[in-house]
């Protein structure tokens, strides 16, 4: 795509931020479609490099890699498009401030061979934790999670032969920073001590489907997938409360702590 003379002269004045700031953001976005220039390449390589460890990319860091904020904003639509078309990577903005992005692949890995050895260990542990949260109604107290892992002979405070010696940090720092787990403190009632709860984070919800976790659970526990049908319905109900039209047996039979299913008010 040949760049127009307007774009070429604008790039030539890249250091002249005064003329840039005179344009409003809408004018910038409505300008001639961007060509692939060095700043686009820088942004793409920055995103690919920083998406490797799955920690959200701050918009301010992204803009620091190119000339200035406006240049980054102008190129972001093209960068998103190229990421999706060439690499099958979606750039997703997370809720809240400061502005941050995560990269999510269009499809999960087809095999663990696509992962490095340390990523394989992370994924194994993560799937065990996500499965447990899923089976216990989408939210679980930290101590109960650690107790479950201990039952599987994974002590979070001790070195493990396969998972290594920093399991506690992996769960509380790595998985939380990577947005796979959400960690929040809350009190069940004003008389209780505040407790820490884990639930699926935004990245887990984007990347992993419940049927996939059910398949993992069926292998882990050596059960048929239908064994987890109630949990599957409940998890989908938590995500989409408007889809739950009538109360059903599954709610009575499963253990749930602070998941409320207020179907009568629908």
């Amino acid at each position: 795509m040949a760049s127009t003379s307007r774009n070429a002269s604008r790039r030539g004045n890249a250091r002249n931020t005064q003329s840039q700031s005179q344009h409003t953001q809408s004018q910038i976005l409505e300008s001639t479609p961007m060509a692939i220039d060095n700043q686009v390449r820088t942004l793409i390589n920055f995103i690919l490099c920083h998406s490797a460890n799955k920690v959200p990319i701050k918009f301010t860091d992204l803009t620091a890699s190119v000339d200035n904020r406006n240049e980054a904003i102008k190129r972001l639509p093209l960068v998103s498009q190229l990421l999706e078309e060439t690499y099958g990577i979606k750039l997703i903005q997370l809720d809240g401030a400061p502005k941050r992005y995560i990269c999510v692949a269009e499809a999960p890995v087809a095999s663990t061979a696509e992962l490095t050895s340390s990523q394989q260990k992370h994924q194994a542990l993560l799937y065990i934790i996500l499965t447990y949260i899923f089976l216990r109604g989408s939210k679980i107290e930290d101590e109960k999670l650690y107790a479950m892992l201990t039952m599987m002979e994974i002590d979070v405070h001790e070195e493990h032969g396969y998972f290594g010696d920093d399991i506690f940090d992996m769960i509380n720092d790595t998985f939380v920073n990577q947005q796979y787990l959400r960690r929040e403190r809350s009190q069940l009632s004003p008389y209780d001590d505040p407790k820490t709860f884990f639930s699926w984070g935004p990245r887990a919800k984007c990347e992993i489907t419940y049927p996939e976790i059910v398949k993992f659970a069926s292998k882990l526990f050596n059960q048929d997938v239908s064994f987890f049908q109630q949990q599957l319905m409940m998890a989908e109900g938590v995500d989409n409360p408007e889809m739950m039209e009538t109360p059903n047996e599954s709610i009575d039979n499963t253990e749930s702590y602070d998941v409320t299913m207020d179907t009568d008010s629908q």
Partner: protein
Amino acid sequence: MEMVKRGFLRACINRSSLDHDLIDNILTPLCAHHEVTKPVNDELKEFVAEINDSITKLSQSLTFVKHPISGKEYLVFAITDATPDTHNYPGMTAAECQYFAMILDKLGNQEDGHIAWNEAYSELNFKAVARPPSKLRMQALIQQWTEMGYLLEANDRLYFGPRSLVEFEFYLRFNFPETIKPCHLCKQLVLWDIKCSDCGRKIHRECIRKYLRTRSNCPTCGKKWTTRLSQ
């Protein structure tokens, strides 16, 4: 097939440097999942060339390279014309980035292009760094860079890996003029391979083998070629 290409590209970016066994371990389930026939041999080369075409304009490449030391062929994802200071992965401190450049320097300054294991941990002058990495961390980094293909381990020594040969070709060519020179015949860099016993100039084994079918002298110094070609 486009989804398979993109999935394979993502895997290559993640693994960075892949031998044929790993390529197979990735492609077999990936193609099975998308219900397409797995490309093999020439089809594989074409498959990779098509992916490469889509990323060249973004200053990246996905190419096969044969490593003279291991004799194996690797598929390498590389950033075009990178330099060691642009190798700046998040999670690496400034000291660790410096360490990476230092290791490449050590290798580049060696006439034979390889160093012993312990040389990777000794005589390191960290400039303006409050806390150089611990030996344990350095060992972990060396292992990580070997996994990524920046380094290669063989016979208890450390060599430039396939990814370094592709990604830092430009950097190595111009920063180590005494030790790293292009092959007189094909003009590509030659680090190991074979030397003329007279002038000591290195040349690719394959290049000199073809050349000696019709000539009998060293292409660099002109004297009669007397070095054995077989390893």
